């Protein structure tokens, strides 16, 4: 049993933490493309109903004072945003009609 990453109120999402608690957009985008739409839906269906609660939990802290478990939860929220593009908008893992285009995020604010 690996150590718990998420706040205890979100314990049921722990099974997604290893795959989706990813700190960079490049990792989140690559994980999305490496997943089947079924796998993406499974994560989306489990987490989306609790998204607003998760945002409220992270929003209790100042941006530069997020405890580690809330930071993991924030990264999981960022992954849900990424996965929502596939599940809600595109209906497939990759953006429709993007062909072989690649766009790399090279700079971003943290967290």
């Amino acid at each position, binding site marked *: 049993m690996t150590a718990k990453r998420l706040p205890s109120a979100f314990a049921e999402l722990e099974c997604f933490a290893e795959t989706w608690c990813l700190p960079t957009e490049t990792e989140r985008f690559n994980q999305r493309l490496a997943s089947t739409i079924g796998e993406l839906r499974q994560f989306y269906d489990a987490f989306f109903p609790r998204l607003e609660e998760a945002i409220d939990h992270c929003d209790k802290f100042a941006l530069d004072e997020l405890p580690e478990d809330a930071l993991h939860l924030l990264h999981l929220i960022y992954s849900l945003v990424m996965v929502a593009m596939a599940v809600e908008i595109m209906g497939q893992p990759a953006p429709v009609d993007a062909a072989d285009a690649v*766009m790399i995020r090279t700079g971003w604010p943290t967290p």
Partner: protein
Amino acid sequence: MTDQSCARSGRTPQGSWTEHYPELGTGPISFADSTSPEFFELEREAVFKRAWLNIGRIEELPEHGSYATKEIEAARASVLLIHTDQGIRAFHNVCPRCGTKLVWHEYPDRETAGQAGEITCKRCRRTHEFDGADTAALMPLHCDIWNGFIFVNLDTAPRQGLREFLGPMLTGLDGYPFEKLTERYDWVAHNNSNWKIFADAFQEYYHVPALHSQQVPAQVRVPGAGFTCGHFQLDGPHRLVSTAGRRRWLLPPEYMYPIERATRSGLVGPWETPDIGELPAGLNPGGIEPWGISNFQIFPNTEILIYGGWYLLYRYWPTSHNTHRFEAHTYFHPARTVRERIEHEVASVVLKEFALQDAGMLGGTQAALEYGIVDDFPLGDQEILVRHLHKVVVDWVDDYRRAHAGVGAPR
């Protein structure tokens, strides 16, 4: 969302945007300027070594000693920007003593940035101070700043100063609070098309309902929907397009995706942004109401696309006649809360999603142009800016050719 009645009432007395600018003509145009290696060689000299080029913003060089290098492949130049005691200055990124590339990290062809008290050449170990008179040792470039945007000009004697080059339409943006919008996300893409072909994708919007049909949820999508921009404007080599837009949170909920409703952010950015003060009239020179976005295209290769309370910056850097490096940046006010940071992340993720669709088209568009089957392309009134960009580039190249034809080659 466009407001059709508003867009129609914005038409010019001539009845079309294109006919309002008679020098543009209305005939079909050639895209040979986007397929020819010979034309690209001329473009390097006529455009990229003569125009003022935006290569960054002052926030990238926040304090004394901050430096950044910028590669301008089209002009075969590398620029070293340094925040000196006389402000931000630009130099050729070349050691004046031994002639090697001066500042780089790990790979000479990649851009780098950092903080230094002096600049030391990796090869000859010569040290260059950058304050005071000693900067004379480094080779300076013409550099000027407008509203925090850093421009350089690689010409030995630029034909115009920066403000004169920008002209009244762009300087009408003076006073826009760019300095308050400093939270930045950056992207780079290497695209397989001529640089102008990608710029074109952001200066006509009729393709949006077709290529980006997913921007509207399927249950409220209108098959065959069109899109009409409310205002177009040209000023010298520069262009502007504005569109109308309704406040996102006033739309019925089914017009948004669940992730947008949950995060109050999405396709057009965060729904609500902090008050950034009074905005200049030049932001919306067509008086579009309700105003949505204004897209300022600074010749040759920079685009500032201003939404409510945030903006996008695109640059298209040619690397050959049929490839370019695309830089994209979003600029938001600094997030005050985690919730605001999530709003910025959502806007940035959605932006990439649809920019990838635009980029994905490029291989096909460029290939079809290079087949050479069609050489006369009709352009519609909503493509006036496409017509203008290609005309200005060809005009600048013709001017350059004429000036050089007189030298040793009578005609």
